[in-house]
């Protein structure tokens, strides 16, 4: 029996010890009427050899594409060591470190992670992960409203430059909490959130500030933070952690203008060594100012000492969590994204500040090179003028058909923005990270030019 070692002899002797006539008897407390006959629609079992072949064939069936998609999930180089270590059995098959003395490996790794991500965001403390960037934002909004207290307004400004799926997730998560989410628009020319438009809103609990925003455009985070703090609203930063090797950390936003930096910072951890893998498992991170820590959701690891005075690590501040506080907890989250965090910690330890800066910088430069190259193509136009990080919006004729053409050339050319931002017309969001070289950029431009102006081709892409 796959994964079950018992022989008939084992079964017999165990049943004898129990004093039961058969295994079925162990289920005697279940009302007979409820017992299931069969699982007809579940196929028969396969051995490992056969499933390995099936999965290999499926994995290969779709082929490989040169990828210029970003939009919240980024292709970066991941050192081979990262997942070779993260998938070691001791990390892979352990669980939440409830028994601290038997889990120092996981606990210390998480403590190191918290330290690293807090340094990246420039904030005081961090938790040990939430599910993903979008749900982390949902949690941050709930947290901000809790921090503001029962008497404060339950109104949050959410810029339209934020990832549409983040906005959708937030909507699902705050839906039952009587929180008013107000979307604020962006300047058509720069692609930045319209600060003047914010002034229309009063009594705000929190303002969400993405950096870079969904369009790859860099927001004027100092001004936004100052605006919010002037109105006693909390600032929730939504950041790409890799970009923070290059960009001003949320903890410093607006400080020149007298603001005290973002109060909470969340984001998607995927760029830190987590493969694209169809969208998950990734991890959300959350950092905040020290004084807010008791309202923070998620597990937190702290340093302490043992009976002999040696340093060690434990889960701490558990009184915030569901297993202690139940319906009064800061969140219902229990299982988080530990393994992805382990990988991210190893990634950050390997790259360090210099390596991450190099990756961010090269990504930035590659995008610039790509933009320079495709701008020369007739009909292709950059939509926003603001400075961009590693993705940008392009206008071009017939986005959908163009992307299909590129696909036929084994290129994922970008995301069609039509369903999300019809106001932008025929537009795509295109991304270039450090994984792209000059040859790739040239190939992209060449195929794009062909797609738009080339000889009429049959649409060679699959179904």
């Amino acid at each position, binding site marked *: 029996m*796959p*994964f079950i*070692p*018992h022989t008939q002899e084992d079964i017999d*002797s165990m049943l004898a010890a*129990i*004093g039961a006539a058969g*295994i079925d008897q*162990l*289920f005697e407390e279940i009302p007979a009427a409820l017992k*299931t006959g069969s*699982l007809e629609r*579940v196929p028969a079992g396969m051995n490992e050899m056969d499933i*390995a072949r099936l999965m290999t064939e499926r*994995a290969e069936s*779709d082929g490989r594409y040169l990828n210029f998609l970003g939009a919240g*999930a980024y292709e970066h180089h991941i*050192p081979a060591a990262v997942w070779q270590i993260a998938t070691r059995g001791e*990390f892979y098959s*352990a669980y939440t470190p*409830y*028994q601290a*003395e*038997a889990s120092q490996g996981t606990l*210390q*790794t998480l403590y190191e992670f*918290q*330290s690293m991500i807090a*340094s990246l965001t420039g904030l005081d403390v961090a938790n040990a*992960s939430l599910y993903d960037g979008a*749900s982390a934002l949902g949690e941050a909004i709930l947290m901000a409203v809790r921090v503001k207290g029962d008497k404060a307004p339950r109104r949050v400004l959410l810029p339209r430059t934020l990832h549409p*799926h983040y906005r*959708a997730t937030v909507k699902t998560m705050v839906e*039952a909490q009587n929180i008013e989410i107000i979307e604020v628009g962006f300047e058509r020319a720069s692609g930045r959130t319209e600060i003047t438009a914010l002034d229309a809103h009063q009594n705000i609990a929190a303002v969400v500030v993405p950096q870079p925003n969904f369009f790859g455009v860099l927001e004027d985070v100092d001004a936004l933070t100052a605006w919010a703090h002037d109105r006693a609203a909390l600032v929730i930063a939504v950041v790409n952690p890799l970009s923070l090797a290059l*960009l*001003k950390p949320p903890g410093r936003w607006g400080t020149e203008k007298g603001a005290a930096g973002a109060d909470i910072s969340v984001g*998607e951890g995927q760029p830190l060594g987590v493969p*694209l893998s169809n*969208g*998950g498992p990734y991890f959300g991170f959350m950092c905040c100012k020290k004084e807010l820590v008791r309202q923070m959701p998620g597990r937190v690891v*702290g340093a*302490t000492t*043992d*009976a002999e005075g040696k340093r*060690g690590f434990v889960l*701490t501040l558990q009184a915030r969590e*569901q297993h202690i506080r139940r*319906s009064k*907890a800061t969140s*219902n989250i*229990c*299982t988080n994204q530990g*393994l*992805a965090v382990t990988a991210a910690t190893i990634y950050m330890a390997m790259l*360090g500040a210099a390596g991450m800066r190099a990756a961010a910088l*090269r990504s930035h*430069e*590659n995008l*610039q090179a790509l933009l320079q190259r495709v701008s020369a193509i007739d009909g292709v136009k950059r939509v926003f003028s603001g*400075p961009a990080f590693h993705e940008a919006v392009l206008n071009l004729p017939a986005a959908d058909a163009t992307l299909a053409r590129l696909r036929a050339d084994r290129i994922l050319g970008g995301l069609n923005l039509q369903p999300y931002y019809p106001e932008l017309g025929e537009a795509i969001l295109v991304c270039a990270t450090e994984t792209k070289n000059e040859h790739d950029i040239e190939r992209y431009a060449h195929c794009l030019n062909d797609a738009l102006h080339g000889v009429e081709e049959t649409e060679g892409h699959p179904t």
Partner: protein
Amino acid sequence: MSDRTPAQIAAGSRLPPEPLIFERSQRGHGAQAQFAAAPAAAPAARRASALPKQLLREQALALPEVSELDALRHYTRLSQRNFSIDTHFYPLGSCTMKYNPRACNSLAMLPQLLAQHPLAPEQARQGTLACWHELQEMLKEVTGMAGVSLAPMAGAQGEFAGVAMIRAYHRARGDTARTEIIVPDAAHGTNPATAAMCGFSVREVATDAQGNVDLGALRAMVGPQTAGLMLTNPSTLGVFERSIQDIERIVHPAGGLLYYDGANFNAILGKVKPGEMGFDVMHMNLHKTFSTPHGGGGPGAGPVAANERLRKFLPLPVVMQDHLHYRWLNERDLPDSIGRLSAFAGNAGVLLRAYVYARMLGRAGMQRVADFATLNANYLMVELRKAGFDLAFPERRASHEFIVTLQRLKEETGVTALDFAKRLLDYGIHAPTIYFPLLVKECLLIEPTETESNQTLDAFIAAMRGILDEARTQAELVKSAPHSTPVRRLDEVKAARDMNLVWRRE
């Protein structure tokens, strides 16, 4: 290594603690083979200097600078300072720490799968979509439900989805008076926490002496304000909720819905279908029942399943098969959906691991899961009773887990469940869940899972016996455990007081 002074290295020393990676850091040491090369000659316009200065980082970044070897060595050594399924028996109740087949990992991590972008068009990912679709279908079959969404990223998020669906259902019927969710007092903390996140107030219903929901109390509690009842079955007490049919007959007629917390689904997989027990909506913990890795705390996956009444509220996205083509259902296809739970499609790679596991088990294998999880648990329970342990529910069969209470031992010797747990670590066994459920004093919730052999179970029994003996003859040894771990018992109070949550250069 560098931290073991001669004096520390006496005979029989334990695995030493490992310094922090920051303490290994030296300026300029870095894994340079991993650095992106600068482009041959980037025109000034392309460089970072082209970015507005006020948006750039000026502050130092406190990331460690260590060579690739030092980083590798550090995390390899850290890993060795963990107990795990792969190295130790890990009977952590409620968590189903069964063997995580290695093939599930390597097949979910095939290079082509890791390279797939979550927003790549469906045409470029048919192979993967096929896996998820088939997984949805298998989960429908084992739950007896009409629809499944794989979106939730853990059990608690599955609960959120399910309870949000209950809310959406009542709302859709204009039934806005239903503001309460009932949970048993033995329920897992995520149940009340979830109900609160979904905007409900929480009522706790009592448990009777046999571990069942107190039906009288339940009857008294149910009414037009009842949105639903959340129930784990077998319950967190390690027994099957026998009156489930009665419960259904109380809640449904009152207009409430039944939520099934599938954390303990391992106990009844292929034996009973929640949909047939009368539940309307449920989640599964794939990291438990379908053996995806626990990963030091996650990631898991918590698919949600619903019957005909509730399926239209399922969270997005969902995969459907359209002739020979697979595609995502979105907001336009499912306008009543509670919406998205994440930026993309949940813990996609975890779902692939579960898919591989499910295909390997197949129909017959799934039915064996509950059989042997239950056999192992009952065997342990009976043998521990013979060894002198008190059971919380001695009259009941164990489900896939059961509870031992050390209340009497504590009174006799001062040895607590915590002490006992720590001492088990010295025997090379991860401790069971302790002090949960809160209902039973000094409790150990013990779940062996079906993948452990009788040899391992017997070794556990011997260890439990040995510690019981120690507790009676040399209590101090137990109370000061663990003795063989890299660190001795850690001071949790100090941790909470100091709030040393991040490392800072001194």
